[in-house]
């Protein structure tokens, strides 16, 4: 293994060590120390991955390829060997650094935050348990990032889900928290069900479960017109598409895409740092990360589905976020919406843009969640923004850093220049690609990727190979679709939502920090905690600079070459960006303006509008009734089914057994003919019952009186004697 791989591996394993230490001896370490152990662990990982980033930047393509070593065998599935290794490329390095960096500061924040939040339960401190789970999460997430095979990805994928479950349910004495934890896990499992089946398809058709091998075999199989992958499957889609779609199911669950988005808002029951780390910055982005990794296994139809899901999700999230009053719920729905943007980006082929957005989003969303945590902590667990207001006096740093986050998510920047915050570049890049796919000339599909396309790494496929594979594999309709313009909705809907995003974010910020205090009690006690401010400042700085400077090139260089969907980059980015400027450049200004206008004088104006649009408001307030629908149809259906099964078991199966036995006994008394039939039918308990009854009859002789036994025995002997005499003549 190369030293880079070893460093990443070490950085992954260190949190695991921290987890074991805290799990076994956490209670003894005590309150602040346990937190610092976990923080030190993730900080060490962060330093290591920082070193990896630095070294990676200094290497040329050949050295980078050389740094990647062969995977080691893990086990065998059938006769297919499963191997594990470190998937060392720019994307891994970038995401790894992002995860460790954000995690480190969230850990620091948590020490401050959990000091007051972990002792609520029963007088027993769960402080160490929280950090143990957090360490386990870091391990799982980092493992997921470096995994180089689909199986390994799935393993860490589930572990991440487990940590999410444990952390959402951290306040498990609250029924709502444990219910939310279950919901998260089960909904994710629904997605994972598809993921498993997708892995089954990969195993079946490709016979190789490593990312690189699967991609290679996929290209080969698509190049073969007689391949089984080309056969039509259900719903008129071919098998290759189904393969990609099933794998995508996993991402739908984890990244809270429509229709499996329902778990994420509920997941806010967990402690706020958890919401920041898992349900905003890292874990939910894992779905997008997965799609990026399996991008080469997705056919045009599959990508269309991905884009569609993303488009629906981003709309849904943004609309619901508009009416939310819980500060964390607003952020949760904005996360859903942003994840939708990423998925849309993947679907339309903005591979780089989507990942870029993932990275920038991690920073500013973590920042905002921590800010909300600060607010909640400061306001004594008040989460309703309608009762806040005017907090900027009490929490100036939080207010400022939160604003930076809001600007970033809104895509604020000075149009026409390269001055802007994360979202300004990343979101607009996604929109730009969508634009070019919808209104472009369709030649992007064939355009080579340009200077950034690497020749090395598992993702490198010869452009001709892939393209010819597609043209051969997908003749006729599909080829036409591959280059055909996408539906215009895929561009216009996100653009419209890009106006909504600044609105609800500004609404949230304004209601929280600006205006007059609406609740004196909340306002009076509000204060900032020093330990918790530091991470805010660091993450705000990161939001300001890191996004564009560090990550985009790292990601861009691994983008799969020769994609059917174009990836706008470098020079071209600016071009399209400029072209789009009139459409979305001013979106954040408009959104902010509307929000401020609406809420500058408190809640009354908004309330009036809400009354006017009552049906719509209720629809949004109830999140489009998804929870109710699923609760009724899926949960209710399962409960109904479960009840039926139980009744079936009790009444029918056991009933048949018992009834057979009973009737056997009855008929046995009744008639020998019926007895025959029933015994042939073979009721187990029937035989038993009969035996039992015969035994009972014989048992009446069994008085337990020894004298009677002797008498009977003697009588038997007498009878035998006389019989013998009679027989003997």
């Amino acid at each position, binding site marked *: 293994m190369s030293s880079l791989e070893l460093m990443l591996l070490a950085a992954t394993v260190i949190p695991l060590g921290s987890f074991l230490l805290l799990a076994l001896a956490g209670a003894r370490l005590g309150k602040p120390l346990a937190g610092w152990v976990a923080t030190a662990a993730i900080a060490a990982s962060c330093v290591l991955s920082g070193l990896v980033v630095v070294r990676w930047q200094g290497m040329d393509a050949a050295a980078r390829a050389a740094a990647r070593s062969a995977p080691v065998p893990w086990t065998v599935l059938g006769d297919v060997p499963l191997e594990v290794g470190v998937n060392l490329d720019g994307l891994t390095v970038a995401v790894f650094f992002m995860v460790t960096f954000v995690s480190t500061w969230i850990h620091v924040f948590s020490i401050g935050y959990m000091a007051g939040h972990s002792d609520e339960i029963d007088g027993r401190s769960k402080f160490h348990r929280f950090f143990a789970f957090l360490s386990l999460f870091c391990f799982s997430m980092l493992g997921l990032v470096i995994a180089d095979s689909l199986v390994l990805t799935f393993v860490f994928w589930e572990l991440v889900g487990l940590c999410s479950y444990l952390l959402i349910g951290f306040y498990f004495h609250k029924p709502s928290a444990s219910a939310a934890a279950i919901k998260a896990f089960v909904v994710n499992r629904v997605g994972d069900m598809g993921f498993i089946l997708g892995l089954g398809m990969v195993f079946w058709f490709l016979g190789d479960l490593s990312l690189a091998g699967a991609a290679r075999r996929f290209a080969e199989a698509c190049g073969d017109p007689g391949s089984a992958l080309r056969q039509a499957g259900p719903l008129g889609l071919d098998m290759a598409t189904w393969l990609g779609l099933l794998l995508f199911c996993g991402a739908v669950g984890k990244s809270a895409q429509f229709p499996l988005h329902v778990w994420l808002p509920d997941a806010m029951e967990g402690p706020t740092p958890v919401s920041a780390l898992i349900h905003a910055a890292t874990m939910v982005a894992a779905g997008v990360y997965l799609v990026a990794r399996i991008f080469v296994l997705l056919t045009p139809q599959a990508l269309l589905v991905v884009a569609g899901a993303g488009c629906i999700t981003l709309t849904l999230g943004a609309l619901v976020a508009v009416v939310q009053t819980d500060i964390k719920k607003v952020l949760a729905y904005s996360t859903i919406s942003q994840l939708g943007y990423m998925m849309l980006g993947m679907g339309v082929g903005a591979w780089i843009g989507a990942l870029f957005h993932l990275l920038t989003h991690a920073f500013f969303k973590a920042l905002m969640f921590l800010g909300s945590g600060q607010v909640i902590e400061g306001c004594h667990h008040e989460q309703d923004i309608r009762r806040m207001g005017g907090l900027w006096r009490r929490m100036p740093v939080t207010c400022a850093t939160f604003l930076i986050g809001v600007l970033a998510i809104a895509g604020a920047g000075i149009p026409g220049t390269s001055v802007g915050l994360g979202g300004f570049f990343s979101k607009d890049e996604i929109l730009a690609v969508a634009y070019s796919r919808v209104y472009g000339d369709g030649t992007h599909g064939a355009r080579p990727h340009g200077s950034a396309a690497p020749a090395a790494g598992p993702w490198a496929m010869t452009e001709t190979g892939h393209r010819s594979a597609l043209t051969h594999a997908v003749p006729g309709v599909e080829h036409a679709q591959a280059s055909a313009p996408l539906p215009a909705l895929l561009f216009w809907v996100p653009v419209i939502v890009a106006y909504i995003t600044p609105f609800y974010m500004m609404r949230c910020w304004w209601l929280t920090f600006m205006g007059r205090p609406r609740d004196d009690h909340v306002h009076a006690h509000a204060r900032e905690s020093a330990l918790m401010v530091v991470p805010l400042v660091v993450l705000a700085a990161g939001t300001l600079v890191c996004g564009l400077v560090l990550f985009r090139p790292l990601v861009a260089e691994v983008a799969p070459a020769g994609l059917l969907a174009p990836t706008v980059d470098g020079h071209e980015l600016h071009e399209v960006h400029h072209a789009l400027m009139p459409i979305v450049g001013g979106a954040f200004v408009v959104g902010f303006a509307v929000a401020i206008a609406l809420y500058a004088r408190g809640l009354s104006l908004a309330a009036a509008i809400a009354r006017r649009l009552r049906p719509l408001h209720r629809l949004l307030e109830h999140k489009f009734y998804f929870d109710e629908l699923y609760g009724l149809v899926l949960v209710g259906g399962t409960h109904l089914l479960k009840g039926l099964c139980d009744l079936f078991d009790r009444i029918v199966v056991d009933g048949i057994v018992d009834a057979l036995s009973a009737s056997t006994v009855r008929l046995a008394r009744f008639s020998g003919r019926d007895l025959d039939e029933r015994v042939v039918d073979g009721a187990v308990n029937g035989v038993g019952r009969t035996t039992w009854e015969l035994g009972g009859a014989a048992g009446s002789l069994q008085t337990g009186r020894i*004298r009677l036994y002797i*008498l009977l025995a*003697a*009588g038997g*002997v*007498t009878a035998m*004697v*006389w019989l*013998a*005499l009679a027989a*003997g003549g």
Partner: protein
Amino acid sequence: MTGSNRLSIVAAVLVWLARAGPVWARGPRGPGPADWIGIELEAVMFYLLGGLAAVCAVGCVLSSRVVRMALFLFGALGAVAGLYLLLHANFLAAIQLIVYAGGTLVVIIFGIMLSSASAAARYRARPAEKAAGAAVGLLLLAGLVTAVGRIDWSEGIAAAPSAPTVDGLGRALLTTYLVPFELSSVLLLAVMIGAAWLAGSGRK
């Protein structure tokens, strides 16, 4: 306790007989009054002892008090010991008396005394049970007697008289019957321990 006196006298006689050996078996056997007397005496003794045994056995059945039963049993055992003498099994006769009268019966008496609270109590079987028992017993007896009577037993009458059997019995026990002999000693040991444990296990 006249029964017991009578029985003890009989027993004393029997013991004497056992020590002396049967008078009619002494000396060379030949035709003559002595033989006749011997045969006659044997018959007399058989009917005497057999009758005693039978009477005692029937007494066992009929008496309702357990102490009396024990004494009747003693009588029956003694009578059987006498019969052993008649059958030239003098060692067995002695053993019968020593083991039964000296051992078993004492144990039984002890048993009766230890449960003295209810020893005197009479538990009577129900008449139906008695009737059924009597019927079965008599039928069985009749059956057995009929079966025995079917065969002419006179053929192999009176095998040659033998020397006192202690010597032969001892040899047989240590040669032919060595294994059962040893097994029975093991059994006795086990019974000793087991009976002690059983009798003691009720006490806590």
